[in-house]
């Protein structure tokens, strides 16, 4: 190897981590708790993601769902393809490769003293949970915490026990909805935007953090514009195809932005001149 390179780590080399807990959250989403084999916790902040791999099958970007205030690393993996299917077969004690953390973080400092409104669609709750838990663990640093959660159908709901605990807390507001009515559900029915009028009075002055499927952003952003939430107070967490996670492979680009480095968390006002974003 040449001399100038010998001091640099290999940015594509994963570290190993061991699965310490696993549990299906619903029919397609697997929750994993991991410990790094190095014995040291990964140094990450809410909003970041890791590249998860199984040697021989592949690698994919997965959001970190745990908060750095807790031990270990928590991920939620939806079974959609070859790698995620293989990950679903893993058991406690099995190992995964982890690279990262990568990407931008939620504005944990700037948000201090402010009210927070989280709008989550489906699996979008996964990365948002990191900041929600972080804010709950630093409760006095933040103002009101309001969480809106929309899920396609009753059976797809994620983190049910945890949401039930959140709903019991008096220092936060959690509203849930499902798109399609269900016998066992007596809560709100309709897409996540139908929850927005219920908290409209809280929106001015709050930081609003959005994560969900691509289609959701359009509608939520329209509602927020109607409620006159300034674009500087809105944060979106975007997904794109990723291969390297480190700004080289070009796959994650949205116009001139690299989601793996300039995102996945973007201040919405920074995307004003980025037509491919939403």
């Amino acid at each position, binding site marked *: 190897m040449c001399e100038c390179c010998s001091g640099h780590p290999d940015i594509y080399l994963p570290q190993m981590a061991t699965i310490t807990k696993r549990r299906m959250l619903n029919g397609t989403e697997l929750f994993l708790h991991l410990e790094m084999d190095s014995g040291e916790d990964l140094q990450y902040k809410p909003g970041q993601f890791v590249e998860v*791999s199984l040697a021989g099958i592949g690698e994919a970007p997965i959001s970190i769902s745990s908060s750095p205030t807790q031990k270990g690393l928590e991920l939620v993996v939806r079974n*959609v393809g070859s790698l995620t299917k293989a990950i679903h077969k893993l058991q406690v004690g099995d190992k995964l490769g982890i690279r990262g953390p990568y990407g931008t973080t939620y504005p944990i400092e700037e948000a201090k003293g402010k009210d927070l409104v989280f709008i989550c669609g489906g699996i979008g709750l996964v990365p948002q949970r990191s900041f929600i838990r972080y804010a709950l663990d630093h409760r006095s640093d933040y103002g009101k915490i309001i969480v809106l959660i929309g899920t396609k159908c009753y059976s797809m709901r994620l983190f049910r026990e945890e949401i039930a605990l959140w709903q019991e807390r008096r220092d936060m507001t959690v509203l849930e909805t499902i798109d399609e009515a269900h016998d066992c559900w007596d809560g709100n029915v309709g897409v996540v935007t139908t929850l927005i009028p219920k908290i409209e009075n809280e929106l001015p002055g709050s930081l609003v953090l959005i994560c969900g499927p691509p289609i959701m952003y359009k509608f939520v952003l329209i509602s927020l514009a109607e409620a006159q939430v300034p674009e500087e107070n809105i944060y979106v967490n975007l997904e794109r195809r990723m291969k390297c996670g480190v700004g080289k492979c070009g796959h994650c680009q949205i116009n001139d932005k690299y989601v793996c480095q300039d995102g996945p968390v973007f201040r919405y006002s920074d995307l004003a001149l980025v037509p491919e974003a939403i």
Partner: protein
Amino acid sequence: MSVLKFTPKQFDDFVSTLLKTGRPVMAPQAKNGRFAFGPLASAADLRLDYDVTILPPKKYVLPQVETLLEFEVCGPCRSVQEGEPMILLGVHPYDLAAILQMDELFRQGQYDKHYMDRRCQITIIALDVVTPSANVFASSMGTATVTSGYDILLTVLKDGSILADAATAKGQELIRLAGSAVPASEADLLARKAVWEHNNAVLNKHILLCKPSLLPKVLEQSYNHPVWEEKARLCYSCGSCNQVCPTCYCFDVQDRVNWDLKTGYRFRAWDGCLLENFATVAGNHNFRKDRAARYRHRLYRKGKYVPEKIGGQIACVGCGRCISACTAKIANPVEVYNRLLQDTKLG
């Protein structure tokens, strides 16, 4: 060190000596009526008069397929560094400009050791263009000649003699093998300057009607221009324009398991933003499913996005390869940029 002058015979001897250093020498040679970089077996195969190669020499700094890691299936991984000492002989200035851009892109931010290690072990002997290719427009892009970035620069003078200018320690180490070459005279250096002036003027089969540095501004105003749709209507999404381009560096990463089913390797391979599924994610959602959007993305990358990352240099070096490679005859960047320029108000 001073510039050396070779007769053609002395130069052949120099190349023969290079071939004996034990390092592979990759150089332009004739291939089915065209030219390609490949391992050089004898000095006689070297074609200093080549116009342009089918693929750019970037294939030696960023190979089509490059192993990054080796592993046991579902087990731990180990870094692989594939780089080896190599001499890249006969690189045209525009292709050198492209390699220098790539050096910066892989070095900046997260240091890409796989690229950098390979690159550090390569000695580049650049060569001023002797025969302009049918579609070259390097003059327009300011890459018809280069003043730095090479280890040695070769210039073929009108009388057939060859000047060699060693600019780095790596270059000087090789030039020591030059044998009976003599120092170039004042007149030789003037003749070399004439070659540069000539090339700066004639490598212009297509003429960009503005300074390249204006392109980011032009593009800033052209996102919704009809040209994207007009051109892309004919696009096959074949990705040939990406494949042949010396400045395209997007890649895919995949795992492959060996025949023993126990071991395998993770590799990267060239990818192209014109290919239909370049931005497709799970659930078959394609973030750039519109052909015109992909077509536009390529020309924005060349003219705006990549330049913003590398201090303003335009990421099209005017080699003209995409123009020749595109069956639909729509890939010419100059045609598009000139068209946009017409409709742009530059204040």
